[in-house]
């Protein structure tokens, strides 16, 4: 859907002013989830299962309740029965019912007068467990002898004969695979695995809940989406959605992991049980890693065919993913995006969503896409190597472009893959000389982006400033982007725009800051709300001048007569109209509500140089280049920041981050010491090139940029290690022992 009047020349868009919330965030004043307190507040803590899979025979909280300062204990018995579907999954994940399904699964929660008393009380709760056989690996969970985690969890899509742990099945494709492979000069088949990675936001989950005996209350919470929190928390508690008003705090990172609930319903349940006292809950890092949602782990088989001159003739992928003890591994997205970079006639994807005794997976930046990219982009790299083809030229030859029918169905509109490949090819990094034990890797990636339910409001203030109210929490500078778009739309200085993240009581429903949608959807809503305001501002000027509103135009922040025929009047600025609005008809505001469907995906191409120590297998990142299509970069510095952050997370996933489960089914590394996210000294500067192929579905051409950046690094790093060592490693992470084994021929 092309919108009329897409601008091409901008006054504010593309500049890099200071973000409105910058001052609060460099002075320690910004209030994050754990920074909110209330008089009379209690503190909550959660008892978690030490077992991967166990029947809960009995819970005795009497000793905990006898501890001075303890005000309430809740267990599953305090939550309603009768939920189904995803509501039941959420409830079961927030508080175990008959069985603990993973190490870290919540079993009971306590409210007490101090955090220390709450933690002490948790240790006094006695639970009788009957330990059951467990399984944490996706391939093992599909085998005949695997323990059944939950009978009846599978949906209608699963073919007969599969293990009950397979809960969803996907099968899609087109063309004639046999014909396609027959046309190939080279066919390569490989099997790949990736491990579960955690979003690793530095701020643990935190909330403050208050709910009275009437089941009404409030929740303050660090979240990417407070309407989601409202809907999910009230569903878990079995109360009406609007009984709870949810206010988002500042948020210390999310990357998808803060789009669901864990402790929020518990704080409300504890609050109600204590007679409405506010209950603050803050997770420890151990709880974050054990019990919130990492991404899925994957096991994948890829078969691709290519002609001698580099044309991909056919592609087949089988993807098995586990997302913990509940349905929801993003294997549907994985199958959709596996080959989406390319124009391939014959393609087939099969996906299995498998449950295991691990925490319920949550979204993580381009959920499902990085795993697929690792498998397919590694295979393409191998095809290029064996056929002696340049990896960028080969990708250009096959690249999806405007008009290509995507491997997942629809026809692409204007997209920027070709432009990112061309920019990568001419960038100095692509021709920088390499030394011994060094290698260069290239990979491309894609995320389709999202629109989603969006509601925004813009109000004119009497001092001539405008206040934008949106419903998407600012996780990485989006207030600045909204202010820039409002300034551009109104033609007023950036400094004259205020941006407000509204609570659930002040706007219509908004989806979270997820799916790379905030700058696109809340931005579009901001611009449309501004245009709604401008119409009203023009009417006030028309009324004053005694002319037809149709004869007034808005230009450079002023209402003006549209031409000589409309009359001769001096322009009226926004400030002038605003100053008089009390006597000219009252407050002026504009609104916009929609589920905008004009979002368009963003492609990226990464080039990385590594050096591998041949004696230890340790990989060092020497150079890194991100080229990505932003459509139109509203605030280029924060666009670059998204590119760099996505790359850093992808590098971590490629090299050292992984969930390690022991034989006992317990997570071995629930601490940042051993869950190894990249530190400052692990990385070089991350070079960026912003490509701009405008999205016709946004007034200024915006594409979401948040997620694509994590997709290419997994294969790009693996491809670079392949060149540095001569060894193709098909299992992530590329931990030194694995790389060394490959170098020594034991891999």
């Amino acid at each position, binding site marked *: 859907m092309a919108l009329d009047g897409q601008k091409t020349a901008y006054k504010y868009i593309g500049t890099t002013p200071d973000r409105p919330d910058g001052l609060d965030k460099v002075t320690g004043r910004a209030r994050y989830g754990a920074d909110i307190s209330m008089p009379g507040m209690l503190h909550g803590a959660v008892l978690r299962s030490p077992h991967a899979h166990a029947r809960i025979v009995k819970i005795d909280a009497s000793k905990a309740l006898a501890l001075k300062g303890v005000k309430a204990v809740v267990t599953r018995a305090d939550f309603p029965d009768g939920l189904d579907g995803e509501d039941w999954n959420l409830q079961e994940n927030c508080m175990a019912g008959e069985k603990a399904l993973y190490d870290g699964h919540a079993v009971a929660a306590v409210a007490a007068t101090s955090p220390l008393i709450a933690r002490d009380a948790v240790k006094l709760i006695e639970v009788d467990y009957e330990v059951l056989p467990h399984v944490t690996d996706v391939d093992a969970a599909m085998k005949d002898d695997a323990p059944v985690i939950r009978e009846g969890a599978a949906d209608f899509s699963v073919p007969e004969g599969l293990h009950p742990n397979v809960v969803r099945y996907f099968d899609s494709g087109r063309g004639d695979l046999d014909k396609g492979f027959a046309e190939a000069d080279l066919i390569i088949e490989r099997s790949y695995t990736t491990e579960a990675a955690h979003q690793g936001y530095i701020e643990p989950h935190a909330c403050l809940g208050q709910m009275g005996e009437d089941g009404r209350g409030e929740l303050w919470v660090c979240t990417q989406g407070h309407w989601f929190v409202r809907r999910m928390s009230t569903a878990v508690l079995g109360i009406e959605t609007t009984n709870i008003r949810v206010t988002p705090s500042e948020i210390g990172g999310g990357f998808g992991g803060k789009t669901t609930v864990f402790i929020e319903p518990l704080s409300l349940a504890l609050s109600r049980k204590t007679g409405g006292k506010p209950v603050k809950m803050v997770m420890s890092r151990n709880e974050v890693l054990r019990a919130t949602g990492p991404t899925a782990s994957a096991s994948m088989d890829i078969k691709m065919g290519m002609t001698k001159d580099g044309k991909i003739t056919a592609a087949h992928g089988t993807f098995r993913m586990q997302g913990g003890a509940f349905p929801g591994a993003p294997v549907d997205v994985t199958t959709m995006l596996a080959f989406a970079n390319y124009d391939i006639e014959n393609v087939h994807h099969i996906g299995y969503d498998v449950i295991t005794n691990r925490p319920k997976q949550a979204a993580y930046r381009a959920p499902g896409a990085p795993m697929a990219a690792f498998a397919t982009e590694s295979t393409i790299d191998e095809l290029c190597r064996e056929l002696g083809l340049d990896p960028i030229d080969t990708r250009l030859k096959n690249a999806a472009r405007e008009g290509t029918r995507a491997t997942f169905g629809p026809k692409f509109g204007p997209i920027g893959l070709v432009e990112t490949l061309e920019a990568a090819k001419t960038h100095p990094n692509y021709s920088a000389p390499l030394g011994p034990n060094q290698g260069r890797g290239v990979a491309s990636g894609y995320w389709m982006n999202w629109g989603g339910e969006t509601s925004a409001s813009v109000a004119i203030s009497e001092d001539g400033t405008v206040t934008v109210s949106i419903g998407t929490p600012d996780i990485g500078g989006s207030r600045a982007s909204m202010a820039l778009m409002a300034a551009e739309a109104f033609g007023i200085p950036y400094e004259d725009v205020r941006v407000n993240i509204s609570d659930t009581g002040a706007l219509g429903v908004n989806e979270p800051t997820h799916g790379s949608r905030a700058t696109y959807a809340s931005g579009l809503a901001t611009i449309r709300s501004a245009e709604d305001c401008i119409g009203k501002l023009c009417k006030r000027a028309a009324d004053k001048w005694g002319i037809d509103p149709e004869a007034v135009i808005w230009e450079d922040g002023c209402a003006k007569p549209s031409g000589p025929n409309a009359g001769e009047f001096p322009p009226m600025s926004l400030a002038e109209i605003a100053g008089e609005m009390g006597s000219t008809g009252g407050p002026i505001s504009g609104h916009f509500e929609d589920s905008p469907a004009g979002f368009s995906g963003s492609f990226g191409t990464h080039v990385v140089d590594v050096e591998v120590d041949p004696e230890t297998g340790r990989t060092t990142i020497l150079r890194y280049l991100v080229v990505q299509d932003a459509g139109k970069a509203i605030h280029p510095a924060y666009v670059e920041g998204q590119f760099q952050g996505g790359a850093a997370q992808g590098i971590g996933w490629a090299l050292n981050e992984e969930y390690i489960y022991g034989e006992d089914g317990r997570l071995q590394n629930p601490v940042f010491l051993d869950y190894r996210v990249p530190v400052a*000294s692990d990385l070089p500067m991350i070079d960026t090139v912003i490509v701009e192929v405008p999205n016709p579905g946004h007034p200024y051409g915006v594409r979401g940029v948040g997620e694509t950046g994590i997709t290419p690094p997994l294969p790009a790093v693996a491809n670079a290690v392949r060149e540095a060592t001569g060894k193709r490693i098909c299992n992530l992470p590329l931990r030194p022992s694995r790389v060394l084994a490959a170098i020594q021929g034991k891999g």
Partner: protein
Amino acid sequence: MSKQHITATVNGDEVEFLCDTRETLLDCLRDHAGIMGVKEGCGTGDCGACSVTLDGRLVCSCLVLGVEADGAEIGTVEGIAEGEKLHPLQRKFIEHAALQCGICTPGILVAAKNLLEKNPDPTETEIRYWLAGNLCRCTGYDKIVRAVMDAAAEMREAS
């Protein structure tokens, strides 16, 4: 168990609080002294979000007990600006877009200020290793390192 009475100087001001012996300095600053710019990211000294100076030495306040702080001088992000005047690091962090979510920013500012007091002209590598204990999950560190280098350059010119 009775609590202990602690007197410390925080950002130049005398602060008194009662603490349980098990409470960390981080707990005490946040829960008893209202110093909320100190953040808990891990509680195990692995992320640096709770960085403060203790008698001039950079430490993780999660790895110090509250009772150990009796008589100590503590510096937090709240004490970096001089009145209305931001520290150059604070200005440069905003200017370079060196924060996204901002949760690691207070700890990184405290750590970077401590570095520049010891080494006014650090190399990129020195900055990266000094800040290796301050995790940032948003930025990939690029803009953080640039902001520190730029602030250092400005401070050298001004001195």
